[in-house]
């Protein structure tokens, strides 16, 4: 009995240790970056910074290269969000009305880009589009981002629709509503939150994508992550830390929005990333 007790105590202690080490490991690099962005020194010195200043944010603000990428990314992400949400929501509605067998098959087909490496999607799209060579860079980027964001908008629409029972729609139609009225007064208002969560995912993944954009960008039109990755590879300095802090701010905003429209627990409960 005694040895069993000891084993249990060791187990509890080691689980606590694993949790503590993991939290430090996950958060430390992020905290270091946030602090270093306010460093007053001209070089990357030892942590923590001795003096604080906002010089790197000013440099980030004044860098035409990063700023033009940032503007492109925001425009692109807005366009991607609108198109992917419209397409994903309508496809999700159609899928939810299918028989279970077809539903599974279609959902798997639409989720397939999530298991494909981004490099292959980017490379394939680049080769395919260069055969015709008619599209300018911006629509090319839009096409690439749609492929990786539509899976999320479809998935989240389906998550939003799962709570709605078919009896509500049937009740509406037995009370005399036609199909269109039942759709606009019952289905759409109830699925709204799931669709909104899909839109947030689409925006976040479009802002974040590097791999596909790297293939489809050119010297004049590039996205923010492409600009940043170029900078990380050429001059490793703290302007990037300031840009990283800006992106973290964006993550927090998106997270708050997601919590508001769907609730963070529900995002997990349904297993968004299950393959």
């Amino acid at each position, binding site marked *: 009995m005694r040895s069993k007790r000891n084993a249990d105590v060791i187990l509890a202690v080691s689980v606590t240790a694993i949790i503590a080490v993991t939290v430090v490991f996950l958060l430390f690099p*992020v905290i270091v970056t946030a602090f270093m962005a306010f460093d007053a020194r001209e070089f990357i010195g030892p942590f923590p910074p001795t003096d604080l200043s906002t010089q790197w944010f000013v440099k980030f603000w004044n860098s035409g290269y990063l700023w033009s990428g940032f503007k492109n990314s925001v425009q692109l992400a807005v366009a991607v969000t609108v198109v992917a949400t419209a397409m994903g929501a309508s496809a999700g509605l159609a899928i939810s009305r299918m028989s279970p067998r077809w539903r599974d098959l*279609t959902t798997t087909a639409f989720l397939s880009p999530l298991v494909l490496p981004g490099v292959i999607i980017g*490379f*394939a799209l680049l080769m395919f589009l260069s055969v015709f060579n008619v599209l300018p860079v911006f629509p090319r980027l839009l096409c690439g981002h749609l492929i990786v964001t539509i899976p999320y908008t*479809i998935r989240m629409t389906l998550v939003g629709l799962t709570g709605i029972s078919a009896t509500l729609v049937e009740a509406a139609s037995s009370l005399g509503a036609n199909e269109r009225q039942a759709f606009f007064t019952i289905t759409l208002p109830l699925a709204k939150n799931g669709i909104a969560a899909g839109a947030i995912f689409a925006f976040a993944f479009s802002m*974040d994508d590097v791999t596909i954009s790297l293939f489809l960008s050119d010297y004049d039109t590039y996205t923010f992550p492409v600009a940043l990755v170029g900078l990380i590879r050429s001059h490793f300095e703290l302007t990037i830390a300031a840009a990283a802090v800006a992106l*973290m701010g964006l993550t927090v905003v998106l997270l708050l929005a997601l919590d508001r429209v769907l609730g963070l627990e529900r*995002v*997990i409960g349904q297993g968004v990333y299950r393959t």
Partner: protein
Amino acid sequence: MKSGGSQVLPHLPEAAANAPIVKSAQKRIVGARVRAVKSQVLLLLPAVAVFVLFLGLPMLTVLNESFRTFEPGRIGSVEGAPLTIENYAELFLPVYMRYFSQTYFLAFCASLIAVLIAFPIAYFIARYASSTMRKAAMTLLIGLTFLSALVRVYALQLAFGSVGIFAPIMSALGVNMNGSLYINCVIVVGLLHYSIPMSILILIGAVQQLNPRLTEAAQSLGASALSSHLTVTIPLCIRGLVSAFLVSMTLGISAFIIPWILGRGRVMFISNLIYSRFSEITNYPSGAAISIVMMALSLLLIFIMSRLFTLLDRT
């Protein structure tokens, strides 16, 4: 539409005498079904069109390109270039095999460590955390998976890179920061930074579906906490464990930015090899062949894992 059908049908016996009415009712039902199918097709059409045009056809282009002969100095293959399997054959050279083994080995290590670390944490959050703590943990974990890949890579480079914060400590400890062992470790750390939060989120779902009474029963019958978890909890969570491993592995083998930046050109993953085929020597046929092999291997991995899962799931 189904409701329309059930409304009409109960009246059928009464209406049997009146054949034309029945016929028109049937026509209406059929018409409504056709319309329902039509509206479904219309709703699906935009997304299907995007997938066929910008995913299906491009993949066929890659397949076609992978069998074409490449002439050095050109961008991609010439139109109508002769067919060849040379692009695939050269992947069996030891030089190329190394990229594949490196990618799979590092992704495997990272996934295994991620699942081992994530499981106890997920169990703790799902079972013992108070609701405030749970909410905080969820926010943190989802925030970490939402974090931009570049922020992550930059943060890790700033902490563990050759000019990073830890550089003085590492050199004091006598660690060679330019050695390939250190670079490999940093890449695994980079993969872990993404796969640990992801695995925890997947495993929380799995632990929540498990009835806690089962583990309690084992313990009340005299099993220690450790052995009750090893013999009861873990076998019952095998589905979640396999899917967390599979997701980590998929993310690991397709990683691009992490090895590109943290590998400093010394360690390259298959994704980086494909990119260099495209950007440095414009040998598209070879890049296409590597892509096809990589996709085939990924599908094989998913197949093997799902087999393994069915074998383990007999419990």
